[in-house]
């Protein structure tokens, strides 16, 4: 194995410092006693305690998690169907439009997606709130799911499905007994991606929400506009810890699984 040159080590060190120092500072100063976010006033967990008593934040968090779970689950089902349609069912009428609609939301500015969905809900006279945000999140998440799952399906040996059919499965049984168990890791990571996208979304949720349905990013945004606060630091640290921990755990599990399969 060749060693890294000093130039390469410098590039990596500076690069990762740039990526991680802001997050690190955020977490460190969430344990700051002082109300002034940038001046260290001693260690304290009081901002976490006050966060736990803030009704508005707790409500927003609960709404956000519900939206994330519901939308990610439905998006995973729809997106997997879309991926099967695109990869397995070959040419059908309207396929170009279909694949266009799958890829377009990935490059669409959120302000446009949000605005257009809001106008649809207004035109259809739907009461805006939990369900409109959920519908909006399903729509863009399913496109990400479909991209992740179809890239897995592309490398999937079709003869596995044919073998299942040859041994007596119809296509639905073949999907649930053979295809799904094998592509499951991709489906799960697509679901996790959908959850994250939903938890993270500010713009589309702002357009499609109504009175009574405020999500965590909306709550953070409106308090951030008023300036930095240690309480937001505490909330951010919780979210970073949650997601970062989850991702690290997932990658450790998947790596252990791979090494187990190689033995």
């Amino acid at each position, binding site marked *: *194995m060749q060693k*890294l040159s000093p*130039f*390469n*080590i410098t*590039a*990596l060190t500076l*690069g990762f410092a740039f*990526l*991680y120092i*802001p*997050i690190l*500072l*955020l977490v460190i*100063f969430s344990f700051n006693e002082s109300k002034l976010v*940038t*001046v260290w006033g001693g260690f304290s967990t009081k901002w976490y305690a006050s966060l736990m008593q803030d009704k508005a934040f707790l409500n927003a968090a609960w709404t956000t998690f519900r939206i994330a779970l519901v939308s990610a689950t439905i998006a995973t089902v*729809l997106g997997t*169907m*879309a991926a*099967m*349609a695109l990869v397995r*069912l070959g040419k059908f009428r*309207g396929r170009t439009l*279909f694949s266009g*609609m*799958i890829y377009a939301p990935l*490059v*669409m*500015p*959120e*302000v*446009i997606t949000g*605005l*257009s*969905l809001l*106008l*649809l809900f*207004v035109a259809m006279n739907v009461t805006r709130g939990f369900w409109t945000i959920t519908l909006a999140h*399903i*729509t863009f998440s399913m496109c990400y799911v479909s991209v992740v799952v179809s890239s897995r399906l592309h490398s999937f040996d079709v003869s596995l499905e044919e073998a299942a059919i040859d041994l007596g499965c*119809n*296509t*639905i049984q073949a999907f649930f007994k053979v295809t799904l168990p094998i592509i499951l890791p991709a489906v799960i990571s697509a679901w996790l991606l959908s959850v994250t996208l939903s938890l*993270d979304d*500010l*713009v589309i949720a702002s*357009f499609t929400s109504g009175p009574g349905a405020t999500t965590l*990013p909306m709550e*953070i*945004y409106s308090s*951030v506009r008023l*300036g*930095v606060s240690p309480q937001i630091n505490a909330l*951010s640290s919780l979210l*970073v810890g949650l*997601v*970062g921990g989850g*991702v690290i755990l997932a990658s450790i599990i998947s*790596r252990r699984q791979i090494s187990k399969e190689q033995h």
Partner: protein
Amino acid sequence: MGQGLQNRIVILLPYLWLLILFLAPFGIVLKISFSDTAIAIPPYTPLWDWSDIRGFFAELDFENYTWLLEDDLYWKSYLSSLRIAAISTLITLLIGYPMAYAMAKAPKNIRPTLLMLIILPFWTSFLIRVYAWIGILKNEGYINIALEWLGIIDEPIMMLNTDFAVFVGIVYSYLPFMILPLYATLEKMDGSLIEAAKDLGCTEVSAFWKVTLPLSMPGIIAGCFLVFIPAIGEFVIPDLLGGSDTIMIGKVLWSEFFRNRDWPVASAVAVLLLLILIVPIVLFQHFQQRAEQN
């Protein structure tokens, strides 16, 4: 046959979903962009009935678009969006390339870890990552405190609420999008090509310019588009980090909609933004297809 029905359901369900919740809304945006503003809820007067196509063409109301052309705020915000996105993309490339290069040169066993470290911030909240920079860049922020403590400056440097802060925010948020395609092309590059170049008389540096860089062009193009396209329509970064004179089109659309409650003009802004985006998106697709064919 049952088979055909199953296949039809697998296609139709997501298809209809996207038709209703993705395509149809654009039709409505287009429709409202041709309507008049009204002080009402919803705050616009529909110009025509869906059934009356002839009426639509007879009374097509370009007022909102002429308004966009006349008021130079909109022109300037489109141009400034393109400028900010282009500059940020360039900076992202300059920072991302050495990192991707170093990752591709790193020992094989630590590459997955490095890759995960690149992707990890992408999984944490975008909003929080942007927020983190406010504390760093503001007048009483970490940078100014550190510089004053070191005695380099007496007065704090104004960094937050400037274009500089917007560049930092975009570079920081979109760096993984640049590094991943670059790393992918650099990593699969055949190491013997560099050895061959050196064998034929290139130095380390000239081998990079003559062999590595040209061969990594597909990754550079993909990475630049992946940063440039979303950066044009960005709202959160210019809103939180930019100043009042940082105008980007996403922010204009937001304030037309939420502050001025002018839905028709907001819709017209959206339509024009889409038209502007079509050029880089089509170019991107073109390059991707060419890269796939090679």
